[in-house]
């Protein structure tokens, strides 16, 4: 039996770097669009050449929310899997196939958006109708990501066969959880796109059931945010301890929290649909309760992180209640960037709890508060952690070193991000509470006093947005340095170990049949009755509307 060699070979580097190139190109384009939006909305810029605000907004949302995240995550996960369980030649071939299919899909969707044929935002709500090629593109991105799922599943399966009585490596376990989550979740959006949107946009189906399409979308939409978050948690649980010179706090608790994310992040999509007229309020509330369950593993994670820091600090001899905190390696960007991300998750998570609180949703639904919220979650917590990963992963892959100078630029980048985001997201939260709507171009709303208050905050958002764009330029510069110019050398791939005398991880945590079974059970519980209700009591379907988005 030939065991696959562990570690990152040249070909593995190429594979992951391909994904990372797409991610950083997306960061630049998407960031530029973000800057334009904040400027337009502050009333200080109007777009030339007939480009619309909503076209720019669609590019921003699709390219950052869907393209950057998905490509970075899948590329990073391939690296983690190659490092911990290995990858075979054939698996690598399929991995490339996943990349190519996703890339083709992305380009198809992007071209339609750029032509102004798909200004439907990244949620593409029916009955607004984009060009069919846009939907085909989305379908290909999803299908490509499924190939990645099955490559990862296969990798762990093959490893398991040769390591019968061992527990799987923590990071490989986490990757597989995330991909199981992704696979189950994307079934919903794939059903909407393939069964509903494509035939309808081609004219084969005259009408579309709007509420069904939204429900399928949000069945996917909430686990989507956990698909973004879990790779950050992977780094927090299993990589950061190594960087700060500590050990994993608890392998079992890390796995347990990932299992809980799998179980509870899917049957909760109604918390995005709380103000919709066609869903039974009791079922909304049931999904609110399930949403609150998915907060628990994040509470566990908060404890694990602090504990990991404190134990490491105390072991190094730092005393007092917070001596360990002061002496964390703040000057190491591989730690600092994700740490700022973690701290951002405190207000981010809190906002999320408020959003999901049933009738409290009325206060903030579709206001700028929501935009502020996910700029903290995905665009700070997740993104800064991804940057934190990039500082060592990219040089590791390109055979270069993270120099002191680049490290310091990274520290500055992180501070710029924190400052820009505090200003931008802070003013978004406040103006949201005052009622300012999200996803809207500049408007004085007939000149009401409220609307003029909002404009003040929109100017603040433009200031924050400009600072953030400077942060993006700096990050792109750092990316180019690490990829092409940094001195040759070897950068460590940090993977933390358990304590020597750590308690053994219980075997049931790796009982995939059990966890997937419960996941499906919970989904069926949360969705079957309301979904049948929605279909049985459906109004007549909606014909396509292409003109409102300028697609006709």
């Amino acid at each position, binding site marked *: 039996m030939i065991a696959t060699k562990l570690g990152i070979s040249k070909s593995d580097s190429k594979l992951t770097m391909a994904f990372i190139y797409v991610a950083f190109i997306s960061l630049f384009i998407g960031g530029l669009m973000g800057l334009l939006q904040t400027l337009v909305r502050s009333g200080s810029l109007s777009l030339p050449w007939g480009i619309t605000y909503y076209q720019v907004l669609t590019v921003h949302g699709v390219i950052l929310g869907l393209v950057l995240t998905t490509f970075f995550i899948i590329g990073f996960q391939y690296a983690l899997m190659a490092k911990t369980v290995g990858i075979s030649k054939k698996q690598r071939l399929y991995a490339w196939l996943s990349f190519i299919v996703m890339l083709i899909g992305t380009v198809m969707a992007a071209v339609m958006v750029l032509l102004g044929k798909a200004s439907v935002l990244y949620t593409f709500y029916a009955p607004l109708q984009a060009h069919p090629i846009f939907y085909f593109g989305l379908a290909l991105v999803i299908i490509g990501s499924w190939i990645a799922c099955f490559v990862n599943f296969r990798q762990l399966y093959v490893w398991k066969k040769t390591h019968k009585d061992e527990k799987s490596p923590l990071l490989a376990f986490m990757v597989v959880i995330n991909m199981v989550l992704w696979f189950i979740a994307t079934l919903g959006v794939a059903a909407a796109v393939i069964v509903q949107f494509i035939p309808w946009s081609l004219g084969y189906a005259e009408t579309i059931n709007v509420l069904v399409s939204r429900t399928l979308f949000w069945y996917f939409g909430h686990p989507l945010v956990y698909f973004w978050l879990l790779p950050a948690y992977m780094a927090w649980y299993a990589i950061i301890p190594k960087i700060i010179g500590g050990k994993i706090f608890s392998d079992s608790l890390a796995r347990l929290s990932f299992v809980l994310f799998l179980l509870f992040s899917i049957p909760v999509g109604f918390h995005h649909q709380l103000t919709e007229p066609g869903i039974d309020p009791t079922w909304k509330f049931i999904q609110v309760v399930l949403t609150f369950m998915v907060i628990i593993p994040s509470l*566990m994670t908060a404890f694990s992180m602090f504990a990991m820091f404190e134990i490491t600090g105390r072991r190094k001899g730092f005393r007092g209640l917070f001596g360990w905190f002061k002496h964390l390696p703040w000057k190491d960007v591989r730690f600092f960037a994700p740490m700022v991300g973690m701290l951002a998750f405190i207000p981010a998570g809190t906002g999320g709890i408020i959003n999901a609180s049933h009738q409290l949703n009325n206060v903030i639904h579709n206001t700028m508060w929501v935009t502020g919220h996910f700029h903290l979650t995905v665009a700070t917590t997740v993104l800064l952690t991804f940057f934190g990963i990039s500082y060592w992963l990219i040089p590791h892959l390109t055979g270069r070193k993270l120099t002191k100078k680049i490290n310091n630029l990274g520290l500055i980048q992180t501070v710029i991000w924190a400052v820009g985001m505090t200003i931008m997201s802070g003013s978004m939260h406040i103006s949201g509470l005052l009622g300012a*709507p999200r996803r809207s171009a500049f408007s004085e709303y007939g000149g009401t006093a409220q609307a003029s208050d909002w404009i003040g905050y929109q100017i603040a958002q433009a200031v924050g947005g400009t600072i953030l764009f400077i942060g993006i330029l700096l990050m792109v510069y750092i990316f180019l340095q690490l990829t092409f110019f940094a001195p040759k050398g070897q950068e460590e791939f940090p993977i933390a170990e358990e304590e020597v005398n750590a308690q053994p991880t219980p075997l049931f945590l790796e009982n995939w049949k059990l966890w997937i079974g419960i996941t499906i059970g919970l989904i069926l519980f949360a969705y079957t009755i309301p979904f049948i209700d929605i279909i049985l009591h459906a109004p007549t*379907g909606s014909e396509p509307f292409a003109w409102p988005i300028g697609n006709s």
Partner: protein
Amino acid sequence: MHLHKFEKVWLIFGTGSLLLFLLVIGVGAFYKGTHPSSHLETIDLKNIESHEAFQPDNLGVTQVKEDQYIVNFVASAFNYDFGVDDNGKPLKKIRIPKGSTVLFQATTKDVIHGYQVAGTNVNMMLEPGYISRYETVMDETGEFTIVCNEYCGLGHHQMFASVEVYE
């Protein structure tokens, strides 16, 4: 699986807080009836006038009782139709006396729209084929901006009106 004593304390405290939140909103929703808008009532999208509330004459503000009002309106890209004012012009500013209970009742003729009366809890989605309702007590005077807060197309930000609550 071993849990540190303090972690147990934290998890009990954390889950306890979550339960408290659920209790508060649960009592509000099921006992006081403050559910978000979810009336499950459908309407013929092609013929919304088949429903009495959305016939042209019934759009806008109707007084039902001393301090009770109904506001009927129809959303379409990119306009809220509240009927016409006394001069026969489209009504864009609703006037409601302070302290009144107001039931907003709406549907859309085309795509999905939002409807928020900024500064109040009135915030609901308007979806083709469904009627959305939300009742509130307006006890603060002033002008409240009505905005469409769900993207409905290129003119989305031009879809607005206002409510004036007077003494």
